């Protein structure tokens, strides 16, 4: 009687296709889940009270078409120079107020103008 062992099986080459499927599925998932928009933040003070404020009033009314510095209508281009006359240091608080339905984009534009000159302590009041 002869003992018939199974013939040694030849190792089959593993199919890579299912693995590639899974890897691409993961790739697509993370590409969809990822957030690519580049964001930054504008620090806004919330007003620390009267003791925090020094110097002449610096109240900027932001309107959709322009700005009013302490109630005087001013062009955007002239605003920065006018505000710089009213501050002693760049750490002085500047107060902004949205008027006439000015939206957040408009506020951020004006804040950007002020921040370009180094005025970084801005606050927004009602």
């Amino acid at each position, binding site marked *: 009687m002869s003992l018939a062992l199974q013939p040694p099986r030849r190792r089959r080459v593993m199919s890579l296709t299912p693995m590639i499927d899974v890897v691409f599925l*993961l790739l697509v998932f993370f590409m969809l*889940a990822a957030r690519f928009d580049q964001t*930054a933040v504008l620090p806004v003070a*919330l*007003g620390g009270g009267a003791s925090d404020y020094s110097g002449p009033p610096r109240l900027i009314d932001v309107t959709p078409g322009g700005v009013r510095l302490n109630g005087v209508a001013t062009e955007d281009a002239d605003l920065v120079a006018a505000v710089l006359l009213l501050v002693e240091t760049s750490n002085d608080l500047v107060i902004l107020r949205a008027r006439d339905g000015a*939206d*957040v984009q408009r506020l*951020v534009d004006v804040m950007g103008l002020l921040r370009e000159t180094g005025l970084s302590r801005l606050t927004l009041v009602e």
Partner: protein
Amino acid sequence: MIRLCEPRRTRPENIVPMINVAFLLLIFFLMTAVIAPSDPVRIAPPTGLGDESDAGELILYIDADGTLWKDGTPGALPEGIGGQSVTIRADQNLSGAVLADVFGQLKRAGIEGVNLVVARP
């Protein structure tokens, strides 16, 4: 006649261990990663230049209608948030007066400053 060496059959490299290790790493990083929660509402942040910053402890979303969202649910400002770092994601079309109103509420809740998210141009 010159007999060249018989061309050796190159056996295919066994790549299974490499795949094992790669998947092990993949699973490790999948489990340790923190998936950022998606925005509860579609917000188009205003365009502008700002500072680099990490996400704050508390992220508030304000959509163009002025609705406040936190943790995926709309509603009023949560209680007991004093001392936390607050990040605000406000829509660019939101009225500035509404934003100022929220800032006033945050100030009364004991927050000294917030970070307003802007999109780089």
